[in-house]
């Protein structure tokens, strides 16, 4: 490879500046601000702040509310990640085998990708509407009286369904391209070596999809943690009451609805640390077992 040398040593940094400033302004600065204000008790009207040390963190972690919401976030994240990855993989495997009208199937499965999260939430509200929602009517046939916004479980269920529905297309696209990246002759060799398609999938196809799967796992956990905000907000109609919310949504509620900026900042710092630990664990434990071609 040809090595290009800039005459001015600062010129490369100048070229990097737009990207670096975006990182600084939209990530580093707010993060630093969050860390700083997590140690202060902010006046609700913004007139002043008092340094309170770790009080905000202690309050956050010891509150009964926080544990409950953290547990829901965990279950929510697990369900969304597991279901959206699993269903997307199933659809991708099936779509990969379709010969006639393949592009129609693929387009139909992908278009949801273009729907904005709040719109996805709105559609979910229509589907789960108390009076006209087709899903509510469907489950009513089986004797389940679904009450979104009233019943804790039902509301959480609707959130999971909406979030999964929104995420499947992204996973589908990645899994499909991952599947198409697997050599056809390797699959044919496997079909001569192993009769059971099920076993073949788990012993050959799945391990070769693992790099894609690992990437998507991280993307999906991050999605369930942070990007489901819009869906949750629309489903709750910004009236959380006793309904389930995720940790990120609680950061918003406490900070901007409850005007407790210090406590909210402390929560977001805890979230940052959680995500950091999670990422380290994922890369350390899982990536080691993954074969990259």
């Amino acid at each position, binding site marked *: 490879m040809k090595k290009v040398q800039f005459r001015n040593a600062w010129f490369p940094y100048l070229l990097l500046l737009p990207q670096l400033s975006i990182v600084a302004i939209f990530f580093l600065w707010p993060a630093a601000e969050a860390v700083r204000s997590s140690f202060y008790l902010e006046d609700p009207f913004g007139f002043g702040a008092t340094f309170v040390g770790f009080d905000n963190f202690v309050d956050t972690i010891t509150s009964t509310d926080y544990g409950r919401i953290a547990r829901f976030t965990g279950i929510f994240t697990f369900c969304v990640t597991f279901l959206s990855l699993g269903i997307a993989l199933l659809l991708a495997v099936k779509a990969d085998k379709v010969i006639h009208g393949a592009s129609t199937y693929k387009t139909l499965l992908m278009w949801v990708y273009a729907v904005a999260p709040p719109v996805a939430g709105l559609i979910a509200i229509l589907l789960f509407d108390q009076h006209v929602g087709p899903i509510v009517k469907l489950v009513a046939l089986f004797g389940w009286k679904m009450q979104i916004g009233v019943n804790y479980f039902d509301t959480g269920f609707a959130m999971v369904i909406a979030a999964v529905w929104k995420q499947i297309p992204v996973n589908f696209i990645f899994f499909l391209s991952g599947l198409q990246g697997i*050599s056809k*002759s*390797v699959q*044919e*060799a*496997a*079909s*001569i*070596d*192993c*009769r*059971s398609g099920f*076993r073949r999938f788990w*012993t*050959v196809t799945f*391990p*070769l999809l*693992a790099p894609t799967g690992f990437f998507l796992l991280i993307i999906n956990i991050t999605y369930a943690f942070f990007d489901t905000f819009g869906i949750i907000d629309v489903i709750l109609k910004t009236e959380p009451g006793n309904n389930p919310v995720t940790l990120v949504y609680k950061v918003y509620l406490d900070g901007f609805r409850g005007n407790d900026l210090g406590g909210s900042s402390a929560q977001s710092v805890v979230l940052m640390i959680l995500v950091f630990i999670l990422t380290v664990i994922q890369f350390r434990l899982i990536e080691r077992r993954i*074969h990259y*071609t």
Partner: protein
Amino acid sequence: MATITLDTVRKVYAGNVEAVKGVSVDIDDGEFIVLVGPSGCGKSTLLRMIAGLEDITTGDISIGDRIVNKVDPADRDIAMVFQNYALYPHMTVYNNLAYGLRNRKIAKDEIDRRVKEAARILEIGDYLERKPRMLSGGQRQRVAMGRAIVREPAAFLFDEPLSNLDAKLRVQMRVEIKRLQKALGTTSVYVTHDQLEAMTLADRLIVLNGGAIEQIGAPVDVYDKPASTFVASFIGSPAMNLVPVRSENGRLQAESGAGLDAPNLHGSDRYLLGIRPEHLEISGEKANGTDGLSMEFTVNVLEPVGAESYIYGQLDGAGPEIVVRAPSHARYDPGTVLYLNATAADIHFFDAENGRRIEG
């Protein structure tokens, strides 16, 4: 060990494209059959139909006494070696070899015995714990062979297994495949577009053209008595010279006019006359005899290839291009006029209309 029988096997793809047009052949137990032909002649499709990787449109394929049209590839008792080796990239060499056996519920120590045995025969014992990406092309090729051997199948199917190797390795592996196949005595079907590979490996050749069989026979027979102009120009390098000729006063001369004189052995008015480059004898003057072929030839290019040289030129300055094999030290300047002579026994006659061989 088994025979393989193809009975009017056809393959028609969507859009009514007929890739294989009613191929019938009986392959004997332990025989090494090579399917040879240019790209798109249907040879790979045919092999994949035997393997079960392609559906059969009509006709029957039997392995042993069993019709396998609807049998799953894994149950056909065949092993296939792919052009790009198709090793499982996430498995070690050992597991690549053992995978098919484990799926057949073969006992663990038996698997171990077979893998070790195959590794010994193919000299890949040192790489058993490596992943395929850590192996060279030749080593991967050996692993692919090993994966076929450990299965102890009724038949080996080879899909251009040597085409990704460099020239030297290709010759070496070719010899090794031949030796292995003879030692194991397993019925083999081998697909290639390389006529040299086909000639050296095959017990019998099947020359395919446009999805149909042009000729079946031992390599020497196919070479000596090509059934059509297609086979004549496909088998042999450089290809057989083909000259359109017509009858004139009981003798033959080139359609383009003068420069060629040959006996008319089959009483027809027009032929394609075939003569291999190595059967032409170079002479300074026209042959006197009348029972053989003689042509007047103008040199265009001399192509030395080491052990011998090829002279390209034309009949009397016109007509089709002719190739002659000459000794390696031969030196002829462009424009030199030579006489090329051949005995009647070395001349091939083909029908001018359909290109089929005319036997005398």
